[in-house]
């Protein structure tokens, strides 16, 4: 079920009414669990079984790990969790990719082998909930958390509908304790939650789908090469689109949870104001980057095993992070570029970290713009349907234009992309060291009401197309 659908409005109204009805807490939690299954089944009912597999497996595994004292057994049990969860992910998400690459490899060494058809539907959000349940077993294994006392609480943690299909990827210690005691949103929490939902839907429906997607689609879908200006504007449009789409989803998720009285962590903190790439990854898809840090980068050794090993660890983490996004080499290159940027940044920090110039405002602005420029180059690989398109776009954006290029953006689309991109950069720059809650609290009430009304009005007249959120495909 999409947040930007009429079905969700009715669904959420029913859930909210039940959650505020005078019912025992256990009944309310059961309602939330059933609602979460309905939410997921609204895409494809049979895939609820995957949620049950993931839930029951990690529930049992964590209990075993916790009870077991022998390290070898504990390792074996956690391996079961990792293998089954990654197995599900691998089968549904990477099966076709692996077969295609195996076929290419065989062909390269002269073996004629044809991959069988792999007509498997990707269960929506599988990358998110498999990581979330794995984190539970891993936390118990690493003795960061105890197993949940109640299967109901654990099942709700795995399935909690606001963040089930596109995050934030929540840790068990962040959410399960919230299910233990009865909670109900206060009137202010409810209204602020509705405000956040409006903001998230505004980002998705008005900014991402309405304003920016047409330009990005026109440029990345062009049959012929496009000139320098169009290539850049198409990429800037996608940069704004993917942020507004994904941050919009997270904001709605946080708002929905808050309306029910639950708190979810931030997933984005104005990433296009980042100064450098470490900063970028502290602001972009925070729940994934911290997951990768805690369950991949640090277990690999983090930065504790010397300079070269740190670089390798970073690169491995970012390559796998890229592959997490999609079963295509373009995503791996996207991750690899980020790994490379992080490595270069570490090198410069080591060499020039103490330089005085690094603390000046002008230099910080320069670094922020440089970061934004380089991030945009990576988005080309993220968005392009294939490598030829990505190379073509990159060459053009770096000034090596191709002959036979064709203008594809009208002045209307150019104006919209420029206006929205400048708007996004100004907002991110202003909000870089602020929290949304602080800014709203310091504004006059009538202004907050007017901005809320404007967003609501624009959502309603933009009408939306019911397009899925981009991150659902991951």
């Amino acid at each position: 079920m999409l947040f930007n659908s009429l079905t969700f409005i009715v669904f959420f109204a029913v859930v909210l009414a039940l959650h505020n009805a005078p019912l025992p807490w256990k009944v309310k939690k059961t309602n939330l669990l059933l609602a979460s299954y309905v939410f997921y089944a609204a895409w494809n009912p049979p895939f609820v079984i995957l949620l049950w597999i993931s839930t029951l497996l990690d529930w049992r595994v964590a209990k075993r790990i916790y009870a077991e004292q022998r390290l070898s057994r504990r390792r074996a049990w956690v391996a079961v969790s990792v293998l089954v969860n990654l197995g599900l992910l691998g089968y549904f998400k990477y099966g076709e990719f692996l077969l295609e690459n195996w076929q290419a490899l065989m062909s390269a060494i002269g073996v004629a082998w044809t991959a069988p058809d792999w007509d498997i539907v990707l269960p929506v959000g599988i990358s998110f909930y498999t990581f979330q349940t794995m984190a539970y077993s891993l936390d118990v294994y690493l003795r960061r958390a105890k197993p949940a006392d109640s299967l109901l609480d654990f099942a709700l943690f795995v399935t909690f509908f606001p963040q089930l299909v596109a995050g934030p990827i929540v840790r068990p210690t962040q959410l399960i304790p919230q299910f233990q005691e009865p909670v109900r949103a206060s009137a202010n929490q409810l209204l602020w939650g509705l405000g956040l939902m409006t903001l998230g839907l505004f980002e998705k429906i008005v900014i991402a789908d309405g304003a920016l997607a047409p330009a990005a689609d026109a440029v990345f879908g062009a049959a012929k090469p496009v000139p320098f200006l169009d290539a850049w504007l198409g990429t800037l449009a996608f940069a704004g689109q993917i942020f507004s789409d994904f941050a919009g989803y997270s904001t709605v998720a946080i708002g929905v949870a808050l309306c029910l009285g639950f708190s979810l962590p931030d997933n984005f903190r104005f990433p296009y104001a980042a100064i450098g790439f470490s900063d970028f990854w502290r602001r972009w898809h925070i729940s994934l980057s911290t997951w990768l840090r805690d369950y991949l980068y640090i277990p690999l050794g983090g930065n504790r095993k010397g300079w070269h090993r740190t670089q390798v660890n970073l690169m491995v983490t970012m390559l796998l992070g890229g592959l997490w996004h999609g079963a295509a080499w373009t995503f791996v290159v996207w991750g690899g570029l980020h790994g490379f940027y992080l490595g270069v940044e570490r090198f410069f920090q080591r060499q020039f970290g103490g330089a005085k110039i690094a603390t000046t405002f002008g230099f910080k602005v320069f670094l922020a713009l440089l970061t934004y420029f380089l991030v945009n180059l990576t988005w080309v690989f993220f968005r392009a349907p294939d490598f030829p398109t990505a190379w073509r776009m990159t060459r053009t954006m770096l000034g090596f234009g191709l002959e036979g290029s064709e203008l594809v953006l009208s002045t209307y689309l150019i104006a919209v992309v420029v206006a929205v991109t400048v708007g996004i950069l100004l907002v991110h720059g202003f909000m870089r060291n602020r929290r949304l809650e602080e800014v709203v609290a310091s504004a006059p009430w009538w202004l907050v009401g007017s901005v809320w009304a404007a967003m609501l009005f624009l959502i309603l007249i933009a009408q939306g197309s019911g397009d899925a959120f981009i991150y659902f495909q991951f």
Partner: protein
Amino acid sequence: MPSSTSSSESEPVILRPVPELRWPRVAVVALLLAAVGLGGWEAYWRVAQQYEASYRNSDGQWAEVRRRVDAGEPNATVFIGSSRTLFDIDLDVWKEATGVHGIQLALEGSNPLPVLSDIANDDDFRGLLVVGITPPLLFLPGIGHRAGVLEYYYDETPSQRISTRLSYPLETTFAYYNIDTKLFTVLARQPWWPSRPNLAFQQPEVRKLEHMRRDRQADLWERVETDPEFRAIVTGTWQAILENLPPPPPEEVARAQFQALLDQVAGNVAKIRARGGEVVFIRPPSSDVFREVERKITPRERVWEPIVGAAGAVGVHFEDYPALSDVRTPEWSHIAAADKARWTRALVGILQKVMTERGVHRPEVGS
């Protein structure tokens, strides 16, 4: 990514702060202002632009009608084609003349052949298929304007199906809730945007043309007839599209592609007949520039005749029957709403006659 050296701590519960404001007052202001804005927007479209509430012709609505084929309605009569078949056929008159409530699956700006294949492969269909031909659209790669409709139909989620149902009361209440009045569609078509020299041709958005019912009965919108300025916008759109048609492929390629098309049509018609169904082809009228271009790029003897011949089917071309030609097509491509009943009645009569003459006896039309 964050470069912590270690993270042995578990992530704690984060309690989200709520900004200190008088939220009930904020919410009331927001709702009131949004309601005032929406009321003004609705009034603008209703009063200044003469729009009225109508079904949106969504993929969900098409899928709902398409499911009637799966239901195996007795004497099912299915219409496929482009907007001409969609706007020109009067379902009420068809029912009055044949006793069958037709299943309207024609899609604007679209090539009917992929839908013909879909119906041919649907074992539930054993009735009469009426294929409307708009010759230039036969050469679109894929379906064309409504490219995603078949995929939507097969992949429609329960949530999408419910959203379609929930959308209907809104569609029939709000005039502004229309694909033609989406904010960014409206912004994009404003005349103040300067043109960009050497910009690749971009097909203009076709303006609102029809008033649609839930069963997809669609009438040409009255304003197209009564408002010369609006009509000029529509004919200007047709002109722009017709002047920028992609160049035809080399003669040999075109011949091979057309032969493949004929084979595809013949194969699909044979499949339907093998199950006890039947297929007829119709060519609804066009006029003025549209007809001139169609005559030039898709002459009847090179497109219509071979298709009907390859299918071995009954074909009714409007040029052959005064009753089918004597209608108004205000914007060159679709029959005026007031004329469609007469046209449909004439079409049923002609089909009955021709099919009877050819020995094709179908209960759906009483031939």
